[in-house]
Structure formats: C-alpha cells, structure tokens
C-alpha cells in the first residue's frame, strides 16, 4: 500500500477530468465535505476528490487510473448506508454513481428491468407499475437509496419476509473490476453457466468492484393486500404472536413490530393514531383474495390468543397508508424525541424474539440508556434504536457499548451481526465475533481474487490489524500466506 500518493497531483486530476468531463471532478473542500460520511454520521473522512462518471466506460477509465496509481476508491450511491460502507478513505477518491440514473430497458413480458446503479429503488416500481409489476425489495429508505447501493448491501425491507432480499431479485450485473475490466455476471435468463459470482458480488459492499448496470426481476402486483395493526400489552406477547404466526406456516408479506417507545415517538411526531399499548404488530398479507382471507382469520386468531387487546384492520388504501405511515417514519420520528440515536441491526432466530427483547430491556437498565425497538419481526431482524445525547459526557461511548452488548445477545441466540445494513466500517472489528480467522481468511482469498491490489473500498467488511488492533492468538496465517503466495492486508 506504500504506492498510494498522499495527494493527487495535477496530472492525475487532469486524467480524471479527461475521463468524466471537467465539471465532474470535485476537489473543493466544501464540496468534498458533503461526501464525508454516509447515513452513519459518526464516521467521517474527507476524500482527496470525488469523481462523478456518467457511463460504464467512464467508470472503467476512472478505476483504471486508480489501479495504475494505487489510489483507493470508494463507490457511493445515495449515501444512505447505515454501516459506513460509503465512508471515504482519506488517501483515496469517491466514485459517485448519482449521475447514472437511467432506466435502460423495460421488459415486463420477461419480468425484467435493466437500470443504471444510481436509479432510486422506488423508481423501479414506479416505471413497471403501469405493466402491473413491482420491484419487491423495499428498504424504508426506498425513495432515496440507489439500486447500486441495494446490490452492494443486499438490502432488505418489510416485504422481504415473503419475497426475499435483493439477492433474490438481481439476475445480472455489469461489474467494473478493481483492475478496470468489465465483467458481465449472471444473465436475464436463469441458469447461466459457471460459478455464481453474481451471488458473491451482491452484498459485497463495494469491495469487489463497481456495479454499473443491474438487471432486476420484477413481480406481479399482488391482487389483494390486507393489513392489520394489533396492539399487545408487551413486546413479549407480540414476539410470541410472531413466533406462532411463523410456526403455523402462515407467510405474511410483512410483520413489523414497534414497542412502546417507538409508538410514543411516532405519535408525538406524526400522529399516526396508533393505540396506546406496550407493543404493536403491523401484519400485511398479500396474494389471491381467497388465500388472504383464509390466512387473515388465522393471524387475527393468533394475535388474540397471544393477548392482543385490539386489532385494527385497514378497510381501504388510505387506512393502509396510515397504518404504514408510523412504521415508515419511525426513524425520523426518533430524531424528534432524542438528540441522537444509533440504529443497531442484528438478527435472531424468530423463536428467540421474546427472549432477546427482554434481554435488551435488561441491558437498557444496566447501561442507563433508552432503547426503542422498531423492526422486521417476521425474519427476526432487530433494529434497536439506542437513544443518547452526544453532548453528555460518555453518551456516545455508552451508546456504543450498549449497541455491542445487544449484538452479543443476538449472536448468543444463534443470530447474526447484521441483517441488512451491512458490516461496512461500523462492524468490521466485530466480524471475529461471528467468523473465525479461517472463515475470514477464505473471504480474504475471494476478495484478493477480485481485487489483488486492495484498492476497492479498503478497510470495509473484513477486519485487519491496522483497523482493529492485533488480537494475539486469534490470527493464524493461512498456508498460502505462509508460502508467500498471498499477503496479508
């Protein structure tokens, strides 16, 4: 890594300008500062420059310049990521994909759409809606976040419970490799030959190259949607209802949970008219009317038997929108009741929800901070919002420790470090909690196969001693490393 120039000299900047056009290379400190963080604002770094290509060929040229000169680069979509994935590196550049926002091909008859990476998630559903289709993965940030970012994070959303995650809906990508070559991975038609490299690129957080074109699968708009909000005395009762719904074999399109703290914040901020209760479940069923009807009765029954005092059923689209309004706006509502908050993203087996939620309550008391829970309960993906005040002494430090303890709780229950926000910079040093040094080494090997020089989004996803400190005793060199065939990051 010693080839990295401390600053970009004029000659290099000139080459970037030639690649993308004069106005699309930003070096002004004020402009650079708008790129210094993503949605996880606690991590900041100002890049040497921001380069904004408009076509695959331009991305190729920019990446080649980086490759030839050992300049690290960080791809950036809309910057809504919550794990610091798009956090710049100080001795590198940011490659922003926001100018690449064209829908390239609509092929509803084959249930496919081809888009550039900067297209916002919701735009895909908008353009296929007239043909009766929608793009299923629906992160709460869908108005803003880009398809490229979704691919990089393997993003989820409320309706992924039934429809699957981004990886189940991306069938092909054009990837500019970290060495500046163009690879076509996957295909619009199923079962293309060779290893499933596409499957590895999805969720790789910009560390294996830059995605410049994405072919998506779209699904028919469901003929019927039924939504209910059930009020429970406690998160334990609501958690039990979730476990029973899943165990009964009912597969709703979405099951979202909100606890008392969230409901109160949402009521304060946007008056969604939620009931006053210990926890609420938002359950949505979709599909053929006959199937919805049959399952809806079952869901209502389970909620009642688990202690739900009130079940509200949306009678029309307006009422449905109102029920969702509070859920979709929950993060921003939290901003109105607490000066700062940190969104944790952990996963637990669904049968463990109630147990882990009560564990979180114990941690709240122990750390003396409030936690609001609003999350994708159906697939066990927790989003505890840790409320704190960064100006209070120790505030941020306590929040960080509480967040880590919650994660440990998830892992002890057999879960995962992250369900949809990714590892990024935020959790890179926590990877060893889930993956052994050997597991990580295999990931390193795959990373090096794509990026031998280590210029693509360095410092993200996989821990290194430089980032996380040496952990004597944990690390064991891989045989290839010992033989000198591979070098450690």
């Amino acid at each position, binding site marked *: 890594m010693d080839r990295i120039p401390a600053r970009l000299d004029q000659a290099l900047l000139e080459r970037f300008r030639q690649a993308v056009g004069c106005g699309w290379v930003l070096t002004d400190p004020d402009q650079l500062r708008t790129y210094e963080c993503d949605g996880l604002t606690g991590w900041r770094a100002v890049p040497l420059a921001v380069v904004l290509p408009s076509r695959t060929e331009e991305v190729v040229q920019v990446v080649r310049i980086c490759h030839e000169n050992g300049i690290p680069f960080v791809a950036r979509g809309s910057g809504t990521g919550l794990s610091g994935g798009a956090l710049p590196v100080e001795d590198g550049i940011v490659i922003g994909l926001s100018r690449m926002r064209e829908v390239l091909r609509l092929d509803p008859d084959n249930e496919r759409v081809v888009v550039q990476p900067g297209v916002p998630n919701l735009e895909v559903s908008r353009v296929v809606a007239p043909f009766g289709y929608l793009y299923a993965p629906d992160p709460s940030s869908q108005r803003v976040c880009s398809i490229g970012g979704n691919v990089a994070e393997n993003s989820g959303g409320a309706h992924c419970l039934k429809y699957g995650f981004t990886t189940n809906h991306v069938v092909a990508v054009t990837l500019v490799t970290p060495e500046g070559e163009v690879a076509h991975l996957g295909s619009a038609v199923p079962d293309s030959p060779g290893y499933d490299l596409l499957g590895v690129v999805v969720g790789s957080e910009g560390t294996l190259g830059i995605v410049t074109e994405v072919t998506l699968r779209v699904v028919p708009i469901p003929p019927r949607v039924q939504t209910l909000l059930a009020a429970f005395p406690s998160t334990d009762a609501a958690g039990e209802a979730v476990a029973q719904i899943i165990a009964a074999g009912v597969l709703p399109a979405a099951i979202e949970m909100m606890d008392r703290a969230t409901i109160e914040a949402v009521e304060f901020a946007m008056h969604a008219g939620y009931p006053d209760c210990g926890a609420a479940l938002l359950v949505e069923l979709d599909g053929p009317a006959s199937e919805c009807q049959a399952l809806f009765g079952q869901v209502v029954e389970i909620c009642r038997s688990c202690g739900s005092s009130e079940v509200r059923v949306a009678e029309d689209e307006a009422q449905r929108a109102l029920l969702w309004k509070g859920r979709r706006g929950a993060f921003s509502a939290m901003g109105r009741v607490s000066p700062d908050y940190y969104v944790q993203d952990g996963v637990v087996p669904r049968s463990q929800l109630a147990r882990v939620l009560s564990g979180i309550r114990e941690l709240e008391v122990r750390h003396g901070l409030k936690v609001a829970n609003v999350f994708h309960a159906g697939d*066990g993906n927790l989003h505890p919002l840790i409320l704190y005040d960064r100006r209070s002494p120790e505030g941020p430090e306590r929040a960080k420790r509480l967040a880590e303890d919650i994660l440990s709780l998830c892992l002890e229950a057999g879960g995962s470090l992250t369900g949809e926000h990714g590892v990024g910079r935020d959790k890179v040093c926590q990877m060893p909690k889930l993956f052994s040094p050997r597991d990580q080494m295999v990931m390193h090997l795959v990373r090096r196969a794509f990026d031998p020089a280590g210029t693509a989004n360095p410092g993200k996803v996989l821990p290194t001693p430089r980032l996380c400190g040496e952990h004597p005793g944990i690390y064991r060199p891989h045989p290839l490393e010992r033989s000198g065939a591979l070098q450690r990051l």
Partner: protein
Amino acid sequence: MTGLEADLEALVGADSILPAADGAEGATPPYTVRPKSAEALAEVLALADSRRLAVLVRGGGSKSGWGRAPSRCDLVIETTALNRLLEHEPGDLTCVAEAGLTLGGLQRLVGSAPGHHQQLMLDPPQGGGATLGGLVATAASGPLRARYGTPRDLLLGARFALADGTLARTGGKVVKNVAGYDLDKLLTGSQGTLAVIVEVALRLHPVAPATRWVVAEGLDPRTAQAALVALRRAPVVLSMAELLWPEGKMLVRLDGAVSACGEQAEIVRALLPGSRVAGESEAEELARMIEMRPWDGEGPVLGVSVPLTRIGELVTVAEAGGPVAQLSLRGTVGAGEVRLREGADLAQLTARVTALGGFLAWHRSPGRDAPPLRPEDPVAARLALAVKRALDPHLTLAPGRGPE
C-alpha cells in the same frame, strides 16, 4: 499396502476406506474414502493436496454424471458417513444438517416434528438418495422451483473444507443475514471444484393443508405460451406449472388453505384451454409422471433455460420428430430439462436454444463430455479462474471440471 493407503488408514481407519469405485466418473480411482467426521475429511483432503493427488467428491452418486468428467482422479471422498441432522428448530423453519444426509432422510426427520409439518421444498431429479451437499454442489432443483426457488434460495449457511484442509463457515442459520461475503452462493453449483461442503443450514417451508392439480391437454405452442402469460398474471399461487412436450400437456399444482386451493384451481382451469381439475385419486400418478420425466428413458439429459417470451418457440423445437425426445419445463420460470433423441444433432439444438437467448447445461451425458464450468464472458471467466486458484491452488478438486 501402498504408502498412501497406510497414511489414509492412519487418518480415517481401515473401515473408512472402500474398494475402488466403479469408475463412473471417467477414471478408476484407486481409493474411496468415507470419513466419519468433517475433521477427518479435512485431513484426508490436506493429505491429498500436499501430495498433489486429484480428488473427486461424491455424495449419493445420483448426479455423479453431472458436470465435466475430471481430467484426473486419484481419490474419491464420499460424504455419506456425515449424515446427521444437527439442529431442527420447527418454530424457525430452519435446520442444520451434515452434508452427507440424503434428501429423503432429511425429509423424514424434519417432517416428523410433532405439531409441525415441514419440508425442504426441493424436488430434484432422483432426489431421495441425493445428499444435501451434492444437491447444493449441483444446484439441482425440480418443478417446485416455480414457487420455492433453487438451492441458491434455500441455503442459509455452510461449513466446508478447502483443498488444503482448512475448515471454514459462511452464512449462518438465520433466514436473514448479510454479514461477510455470501460464499454460500459460490459453493452452490460449484460441482465439487472449490471446496467440499460438510454441513448445510437450510430454510424449510410448511406443507400446506390442501393440494389441487389442474391438467391441460392438447396444447399447441401458441396456446401454451398464451396460457403461461395468463397464468403468471392470474390471482393464484402456483407451486408448479410443468409444461410437458411433445405431449402438449401442462400440469399445474396449487397448495394452500383448503378453501383457497379449490377457488384457485377453478381460476386456473378457466385460463387453461382444454383443462380440468384433477380428482384426488389422480394426484399420486400426476406427481409420479412429473418426477420421471424426462429422466425415464435412454439418452442424454440437459438443463435448458430460455426467456419467458420464447417458451412457445422452445416448445416448437421439442415437437415430435425433432432432436428432443422429451421436454419438461417450469413454465413460469423458463427453465427445465430436455432429453435428447438417439443420435440427435446437439450442435443444432445448441444453436436453436442460443438463438432464443437461452442456455443448455449438461446433466446426464453418457458417452459425451460436458463443457467445463466457465462463464461465457471472458472477464467473468478470468474472475472465476482467480477464485478457483485462490481456493484450490493445486487444482486438487475435480481438476478439469472448473474454469481452469
């Protein structure tokens, strides 16, 4: 006793070393080893790797003809002694099993949890005796793909051994997880060329209380294509929509709540010209028919896939008298299998499928050699090779079958 045999015996014990295999893989290997633990398997691999021996992994052997025959084979490692179900949490609809457990064995074990009726929703050809590791490695699936996808969609995590004996994990056992690279996808369909899968975590689904079949006969290519368009847009959830050619049949299966199933079957019937809702007594026979086709009969079987809008044309290729003896196609996916007629011109079929924008993949190919696992795109092929060399630098695992 040779030096190798003595060393293998020291690692796994004499009772784990079997007589020479039948050579179905193209070469007759001197030894077949059936390790009793993942650790023993990893040690055998490490030994083979250090001596530059070529290793072939074998599960139930049901798909040993799939993929290109390796150029060398000195040792076969069989996974069938790793056959335990390690975890089954019915409330989570997930399970963890050793890779040598057969699909049939898994279905019996997870299907018998009291108070639950769950299955792994995968119905690959000759599936009962296939091992879970083998199914993941071949990415094999069947008609249920229409609703539940392929092993790619059902695999939550895996433990595997690299050629040098490194045992590692990827993924987890929860249904949602984005921590680290998704190496599950890399293992899926890698045909034993990247690593030996020793353990898998899988997503299960509940078995619906009711099933209905709708049978359409006498379809021509045009009506079949139109019917599929209508079906995809209809307010129904299809578990299967199998197009059988040259018979001109479509078999549709619906699973769900009792009341919903009947109603949806009527909707399907109304959309499919010349169709009827099958009686309950026929269900078993229909299921069998689907399972056997197009495997029952002589001749090579290839996987085939085309864009949804070209299914009518593919079906025309499969009309009587052409190169195809039988076609079974997942009508809402555009993927399935063809069995070739005796002496059929493969080059001509390949040309026609390629012209439709589709792919052919070798499954059962007596007497012919399948192409190696290599993407068409040259840069993707280079990346695939780099991955292969990174994980298996001495080309120990099924040499010649991968992208090298």
